[in-house]
């Protein structure tokens, strides 16, 4: 067998073994991946009660409205970022609810009443977690959920209050 043929045979064997090992070890994981990929939103919604067809889409607000709601104190802020980022700094009074908490455990967040205004944010314009968590909260029966898409980046950049 020539050198290149031997190399290609070795690679084929390694590839086959990798597929077998990957599928085998997946079965041993506490949360195995399904065979067909499901995106973050599908995973989140799969762990939550089905949304009624009449359920509203979460509305979005800008910094001025978010700031006004915070100073008025009548809304609860929900930080959808990972706990590491939340601990580095967040909007004072916010509760940390990363999407994994809803996705993996189907956890019922300990928030205020179902009609309490909730404002969900994540890192900034580029992250989608605030929208996903907001949809999840609506599916759980929370009635007044809005998204602050500017998120922590805009809040911090515009001098919003922070706590650690």
């Amino acid at each position, binding site marked *: 067998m020539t*050198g*290149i043929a*031997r*190399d*290609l045979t*070795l*690679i084929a064997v*390694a*590839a086959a*073994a*990798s*597929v077998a*090992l*990957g*599928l085998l*070890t*997946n079965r041993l*994981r506490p*949360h195995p*991946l*399904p*065979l*067909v*990929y*499901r*995106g*973050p939103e599908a995973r989140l919604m799969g762990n939550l009660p089905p949304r009624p067809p009449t359920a509203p889409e979460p509305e979005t607000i800008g910094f001025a409205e978010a700031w006004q709601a915070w100073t008025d104190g009548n809304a609860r802020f929900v930080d959808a970022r990972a706990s590491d980022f939340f601990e580095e700094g967040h909007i004072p009074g916010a509760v940390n609810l990363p999407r994994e908490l809803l996705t993996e455990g189907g956890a019922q967040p300990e928030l205020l009443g179902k009609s309490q205004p909730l404002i969900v944010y994540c890192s900034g314009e580029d992250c989608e977690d605030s929208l996903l968590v907001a949809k999840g909260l609506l599916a759980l029966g929370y009635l007044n959920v809005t998204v602050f898409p500017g998120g922590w980046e805009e809040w911090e950049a515009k001098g919003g209050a922070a706590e650690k």
Partner: protein
Amino acid sequence: MIPRLLVAGVFLGAGLLKLQDPQAVADGIAAFQIVPDILINPLALSVPFFEVATAVALLSRSTWSAGALAAGGLSLVFFVLFATALARGMDVHCACFGKWEILQVSAPAGLVRSLVLLAASLWVFRQGAVNK
């Protein structure tokens, strides 16, 4: 010797970190919007093992040319993924090192990194062929 160890180190690190969080790897693959859903999870589960096998092959005297060929193939695939993402105006942050955000790079940086790895792999393969 040094390029071979460097390439092996990169693939060993990438493989081991990916093994810790296959879901992050699957989301990373999906972000390129080019791989069919039915292949994403099988790839996310098996590519890390293949990367570790590639690194191990590179470290062994009897198999390092196969390891270099595999490393070159993987680098070429990564290069094509980043190039097609950039061509479509997407700035994808790959999960090349699992969920370690500090190692997640933008598409242009990923393109350059893949090209460097490809060049290093081919150089190692050529050295292996010359020494046989």
